[in-house]
């Protein structure tokens, strides 16, 4: 019960802190909306033509979801760690019963809630604005574990970035530097066929690739008997690994 009490206290404080930073709330939800509006509604996909957006609209759902699943935890958790360090909050927390893993669980829960809401918004917008068809099959519910574990994964990654970067500015710069190429080179917006052959093995190394492919099977190719379970398994294993590394990376001393 004590552990639950600590996680709840930390998560409640983090949730209120986030909601009261209006700029952060606005851009957390506005950024993916902007992306859907620009690429989905203005540029539009051209299924019969060539170029970057040659696939049907629903093909890009994993890409839109990846923007929030990837960018938000990396920058939020990383910045939060930098902010905690600047304000000597870890020094205080180190003398309380709360553990590093508990702290990261609390902040991950907040990110799961935020990103869950943003994902719902994205799905709704993609369907409404681009005419994408998402088959309402029971296995669509598996989107939830895909998103939850991907958020856990990138919260762990964000914690590592927060440890390695000495300032909040450094965290933002580092997370953008990492997230931007990951977003476009993980089988999200750019199909593998458009990339040089030698690059394909690198795509397999990106954790986001397994999220994107799994989500695509659920939202775009439901009839294909693709082993999405394996992809979910990979995301879960990576989530556990990154979470453990992230929790270990959270500063306790100077």
């Amino acid at each position, binding site marked *: 019960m*004590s552990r639950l*009490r*600590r996680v*709840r*206290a*930390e998560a*409640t*404080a*983090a949730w*209120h*802190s986030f909601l*009261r*930073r209006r700029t952060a709330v606005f851009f957390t939800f506005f950024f993916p909306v902007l992306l859907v509006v620009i690429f989905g509604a203005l540029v539009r996909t051209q299924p019969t033509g060539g170029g970057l957006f040659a696939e049907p609209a629903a093909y890009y759902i994993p890409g839109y979801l990846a923007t929030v699943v990837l960018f938000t935890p990396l920058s939020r958790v990383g910045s939060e760690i930098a902010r905690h360090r600047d*304000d*000597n*909050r870890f*020094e*205080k*927390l*180190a*003398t*309380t*019963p*709360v553990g590093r893993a508990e702290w990261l669980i609390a902040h991950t829960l907040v990110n799961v809630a935020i990103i869950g809401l943003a994902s719902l918004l994205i799905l709704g917008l993609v369907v409404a604005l681009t005419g994408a068809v998402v088959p309402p099959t029971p296995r669509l519910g598996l989107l939830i574990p895909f998103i939850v574990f991907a958020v856990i994964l990138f919260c762990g990654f964000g914690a590592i970035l927060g440890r390695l970067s000495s300032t909040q500015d450094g965290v933002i710069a580092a997370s953008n530097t990492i997230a931007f190429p990951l977003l476009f080179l993980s089988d999200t917006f750019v199909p593998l066929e458009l990339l040089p052959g030698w690059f394909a093995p690198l795509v397999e190394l990106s954790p986001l690739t397994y999220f994107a492919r799994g989500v695509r099977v659920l939202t775009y190719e439901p009839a294909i008997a693709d082993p999405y379970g394996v992809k979910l398994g990979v995301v879960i294993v990576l989530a556990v690994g990154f979470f453990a590394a992230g929790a270990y990376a959270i500063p*306790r*001393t*100077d």
Partner: protein
Amino acid sequence: MNEAVVATGVSKRYGETVALDGIDLSVADGEVFGLIGPNGAGKTTLVRALTGTTPVDGEITVHGDTPTAVDADRIGLLPQSFSPPARLTARELIDYYGGLYGTARETAEVLAAVGMAANADSWYETLSGGQQRRVCVGIALVNDPDLLFLDEPTTGIDPAGRQSLWSLLEELADGGTTIVLTSHSMTEIQRLADRVGLLQGGQLVAVGTPTELIEAHGGTSRLVIDTDRPAAAADALGEADFDATAGTTAVVVTGVSPVAIGDAVAVLSTAGIEYGSLTWSEPSLEDVYLQLTGEQFAGGGGTDTAPMPAEATATEAATPAADPGEGAK
């Protein structure tokens, strides 16, 4: 009496800089221990060492355990330069930090204790600096700790707020809470601390009760007499076996007991020397600080042996002066 904190041979280096150099220290259960020293002397590093938030060489035990193994419910800490989440209210912050412990004091009780009941629902970032510090003290107290580390708890707090916090800390001490307190306010330390340790250059150069330290290092009492004829006054007082030094507009007489003030005044009257105000002061912890650190006030006064070349200097040195660190805060 049991020892709450024992440190033996504690050292810490930051690169070439020696932050702590072989500190030996013990704090008894229920004791209020004050740490004083100039900026950079090692006070904050020592608090971090004792709370296990920085690795050090040497041995430290807190309630018989290493600092990182001790039951966190028994420890309270207010770090220096600590800022909690800025967009939570004072009430939410006390709730938040209280929620991190197995049991915690009632939020309303803590807010009242630190004088924040009236502003409990204001965001932390909208509070004044002093109010923010009071909330931070409340956060340190929320788990009702047996051992409380406070690193400059009253920085930025106005005199009334400071007095109320001092009263609160005295209540805690009376209730048996062990307190390790750092401060630049000698008034604060002299009022609250049972024993005082003075750190300089990472070394604990003096430890004792305030009274012991003042007797050993504080010099003697001082009587400052404003007069237009300080040299003549010093001569007359000297002939009457007073230890008097002339400034430009005052004469300073050292080692005068309160009952001898009348004798000094009588000497001046007999010599026909007119005088203005008289200021008598006992040596204080501040004098100990200045004596042992070799520091002086910006005005140029300082230790009891320093000459008094001008009225301003004489007044600063003779009256209970502002705390040496106050101006820099």
